[in-house]
């Protein structure tokens, strides 16, 4: 019975809230990998299997690759533990402190089972790694890949046990905003304080994809369509962050709507925020310009990304719809982006998106029910 409550409260909620990110990562690993015509002897599902097999071989044979995977898995486990830990500290979950009355071993087992379910995608994948390791005769590495996520679950469970017994007070602010503070800084502080893993994950993936994809361009092969689409996927990966920003703003910063600030200045705060959010991508693309990509294309790429971020933000001022609906909406936007890229109308599309973002904001800001 207790486990069922924990399952509903933490596990289901975690997967529901992070469905967008998990789908994004899944698409990156399975959907975004395409076969080059005539380059591979495998086609269709066999190509995917072959690709994953090669990926796992890379993990098992390269120390650096193994380390990167280990770090990524650690980051995911950390995210899961923090999610449950933060939920335990929410006011509406204070009833869970009654769990302290349970024997420590039973409580540890309960949290361990919760952690296992949260890390299930990693555990399933680690069995695939084990299979390949056994096939290649690399037993030690294979066993390591099984033990590692289980150990992460155990560590997470132990930390949750400690958190439940000794509820920690919030620590001091990570980055002091200064005496005179601007509204956009609140969001950056929130991202750094409460969304560190999501924020860092999005930025690492985003910059990595941009860097790798732009480096494929040559003077003979200079087709930007795939890069625009990949960058579009990356921008839609930001949807989770944008949604969390708005959700948090509604609960913690709703006072701002009642303050004497003009709509233009309010819009300026969001415009500045999302320009700052895009700085890592700007640095990556800027560093590759003009050696790999031409300046006009750089500007088109950044404008398309920036305008889509602002539009997603403005959409959430019509109403703070459930995340699932919001992600569906952003998927629709991505399809429009796809059509614009294929038709070669990206610049016009970006201008239209930017104008729509501004218009929506001006039309809806004072009209939504918080």
């Amino acid at each position, binding site marked *: 019975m207790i486990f069922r409550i924990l399952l509903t409260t933490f596990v289901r909620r975690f997967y529901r809230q992070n469905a967008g990110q998990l789908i994004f990562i899944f698409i990156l690993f399975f959907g975004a990998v395409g076969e080059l015509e005539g380059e591979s002897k495998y086609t269709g599902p066999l190509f995917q299997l072959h690709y994953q097999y090669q990926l796992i071989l890379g993990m098992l044979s390269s120390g650096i690759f193994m380390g990167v995977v280990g770090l990524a898995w650690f980051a995911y486990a950390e995210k899961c533990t923090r999610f449950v830990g933060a939920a335990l500290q929410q006011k509406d979950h204070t009833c869970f402190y009654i769990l302290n009355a349970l024997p420590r071993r039973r409580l540890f087992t309960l949290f361990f089972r919760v952690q296992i379910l949260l890390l299930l995608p990693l555990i399933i994948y680690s069995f695939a790694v084990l299979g390949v390791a056994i096939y290649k005769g690399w037993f030690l590495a294979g066993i390591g890949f099984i033990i590692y996520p289980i150990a992460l679950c155990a560590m997470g469970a132990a930390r949750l046990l400690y958190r439940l017994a000794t509820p920690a007070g919030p620590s001091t602010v990570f980055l002091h905003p200064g005496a005179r503070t601007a509204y956009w800084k609140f969001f950056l502080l929130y991202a750094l304080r409460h969304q560190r893993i999501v924020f860092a994950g999005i930025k690492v993936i985003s910059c990595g994809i941009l860097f790798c994809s732009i480096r494929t361009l040559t003077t003979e092969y200079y087709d930007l369509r795939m890069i625009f689409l990949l960058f579009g996927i990356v921008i839609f990966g930001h949807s989770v962050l944008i949604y969390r920003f708005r959700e948090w703003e509604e609960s913690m910063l709703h006072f701002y709507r*009642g303050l004497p600030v003009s709509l233009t200045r309010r819009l300026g705060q969001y415009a500045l925020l999302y320009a700052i959010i895009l700085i890592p991508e700007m640095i990556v693309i800027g560093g590759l310009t003009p050696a790999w990509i031409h300046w006009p294309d750089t500007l088109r790429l950044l404008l398309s990304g920036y305008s889509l971020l602002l539009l997603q933000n403005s959409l959430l001022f019509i109403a703070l719809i459930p995340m699932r609906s919001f992600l569906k909406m952003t998927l629709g936007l991505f399809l429009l982006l796809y059509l614009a890229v294929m038709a070669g109308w990206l610049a016009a599309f970006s201008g239209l998106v930017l104008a729509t973002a501004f218009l929506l904001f001006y039309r809806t800001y004072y009209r939504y029910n918080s």
Partner: protein
Amino acid sequence: MLTFTSTTKSYGKREILSIPSLQLDAGIYWLQGANGSGKTTLLRMIAGLLPFRGDIHCNDLSQRKEPVAYRRSVSWADAEPLYPDFLKGQDLVAFYQEVRKASTEQVNSLTEIFQVRSYLAAPIGTYSSGMVKRLSLVLAFIGRPSLIMLDEPLVTLDKDCIPVLYQLIGHSYREQNTSFLISSHQDLARSSLPEEKILSVHNGSIQLLTHNS
């Protein structure tokens, strides 16, 4: 001071408030009504936090047509204020001071009156609910609003702080002609407040009941 014109508020198809026409003079109003009668909704509408049909004017400033000037003339303190836990009280005070263009003297005086100085440098997440309440009251008084709305101001407030709040309300009303709309389930010490009037929210409408001169 406050004028309602064909003001209605609905959630979905359910109409919560309907105020065809109402004018309130400057003063101190105690807003009364049962749970769920729409007191907080009314205050949030006046504060510009909720959309509604019609219009509300404060000192002839229309919320719809002059949203910035209107918002400068009203201020609000929530019943259960929530602020980001990682921010410090002083960050929010500085933010309000900048947005409301308030003087440092006023801010210093308010932080002194509500005795919040000792903990303003700590993150809000470490405050007790009473400390957060005091901070929200400081923020509500920052600037020179013509109307300050206080939603359940006595909830979680220390006994020592209540007379201080009454004194400040009385002083602001007499010296700066600031009006107040106070929603409270607890009995306000009516003798401590000058010229208090009672507003009742009942069945989606508002009625001015009595004067207490």
